[in-house]
């Protein structure tokens, strides 16, 4: 974990409610895809945890959806503004167990962390399949970016207005070695039940500190109590206990 002040290079709208912010600063503590940063915003007491979409050298990309006060405020941040971040939080995905044909399943704002994951898997010579799920055509983002990495990409929309109609679990490829997923809880459950291979799932929870001190985001697992912020957000399929 590092306490770093970043400078915002860009903050653009991708869809009606989803924004992409690029920042410049020391990214050296962001070691694995699926990790997150915790952002201090003026006038708000608690930091806001946002998953890392990509980091390349000093450039950090965050994609976030405006869902409340914090993300609303983030959407108004202009180029050149400074943002204090705690970086390199959370365990991130373990790519060493992916096998040759990993499958990545993302839903809505669960899509962003899969981008850096796909990038690293492709770099490792894997044949990466990606299924991106959205509610409707207007919400779709990053399809082309995943394609540009060389992934085989399928998009699903719940209303069928774009891509294949249905959920990500309606578009599973026939063959895959392992899966990685991030998205809303009902989607994670559906993926857990539908995918036969082993996999890793990234969870979301309201956090206090984001680095394991306050026990605000604990969950029960087969291997004991875990803190989503520090022992997660990524959990192995085999350790998950569904409570909610």
């Amino acid at each position: 974990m590092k306490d770093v002040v970043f400078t915002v290079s860009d903050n653009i709208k991708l869809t009606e409610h989803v924004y992409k912010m690029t920042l410049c600063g020391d990214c050296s503590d962001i070691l694995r895809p699926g990790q997150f940063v915790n952002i201090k915003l003026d006038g708000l007491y608690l930091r806001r945890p946002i998953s890392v979409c990509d980091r390349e050298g000093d450039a950090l990309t965050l994609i976030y959806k405006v869902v409340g006060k914090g993300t609303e405020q983030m959407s108004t941040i202009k180029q050149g503004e400074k943002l204090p971040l705690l970086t390199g939080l959370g365990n991130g995905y373990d790519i060493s167990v992916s096998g040759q044909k990993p499958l990545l399943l993302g839903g809505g704002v669960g899509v962003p962390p899969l981008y850096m994951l796909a990038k690293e898997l492709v770099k490792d010579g894997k044949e990466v399949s990606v299924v991106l799920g959205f509610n409707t055509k207007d919400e779709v983002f990053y399809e082309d970016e995943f394609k540009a990495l060389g992934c085989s990409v399928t998009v699903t929309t719940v209303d069928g207005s774009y891509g294949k109609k249905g959920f990500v679990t309606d578009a599973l490829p026939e063959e895959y070695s392992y899966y990685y997923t991030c998205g809303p809880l009902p989607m994670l459950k559906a993926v857990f039940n539908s995918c036969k291979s082993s996999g890793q799932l990234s969870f979301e929870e309201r956090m206090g500190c984001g680095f394991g001190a306050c026990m605000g985001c604990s969950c029960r697992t087969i291997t004991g109590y875990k803190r989503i912020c520090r022992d997660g957000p990524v959990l192995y399929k085999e350790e998950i206990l569904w409570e909610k």
Partner: protein
Amino acid sequence: MGKMSVDLCGITLDNPVIPASGTFGYGLEFAELYDINILGTFSFKGTTKEPRFGNPTPRIAECASGMLNAVGLQNPGVEHVIKYELPALKKVFAKKVMANISGSSIEDYVYVSELLDREDQVGWLEINISCPNVKAGGMGFGTSAESAAAVTKAVKAVTKKPVIMKLSPNVTDIVSIAKACEDAGADGICAINTLLGMRIDLKTGKPVIANVTGGVSGPCVFPVALRAVYQISRAVKIPVIGCGGVSTAEDVLEMMYAGATAVQVGAANLVDPFACKKIIEELPEVMDRYKFKN
């Protein structure tokens, strides 16, 4: 004794800054970030007889200048703490630690206190009779002078270490409770624990926190804590630790002017993991600026 050092119940602290229980774990997460030996001491995570998971999530909410939590005393249980957490802490922290203890019955408090009394690393027992987030015990013991005194007496009977009673602000008269603890043999008072509060999510019309209510902490409670410290320190002879919303070296000084011997820093650690380090570094200069004599 150095310029910042204080005597807390017979043990010298290099400075009055103490991370508050529940915001510093058992110290290990912070020891990765900075040398925690710079602290006066710290109060470790509220520990109970049995391991506890705590409350369902969400456990956290935000408010203007503060936050709410309803963690509900998640901890691995006293045996685990003695077997694993204290030995791990010993490798990174050479000072005496403050053991924060909670329970559902007087017997629980006594059980945990007896075990932690045997640990050389533990300097003080901080008895939490003020947790607002558990159904049995916790704040229940801290809302009447009689039950607060009963816990104090029972714990004092099984330990030679200084006993500090951590009090709840969710009472009619905190001073009478502090006095009852003193009369029952308490060596110190810590004031205050969190204030009972709640938030509602307008999108659902339902409470943000699964437990419905939670404890409010952060800068918004500072004036309440300061008032309690001021009133208690004028009514008792034992040292008072000021706790509640302290975030800066100036806040520490204000607490000490109010009568605090030492000061706990809670929610600030969660927002800025380096908060205590910064406060300790700034304190000498701030003491000089306001010509504060310890």
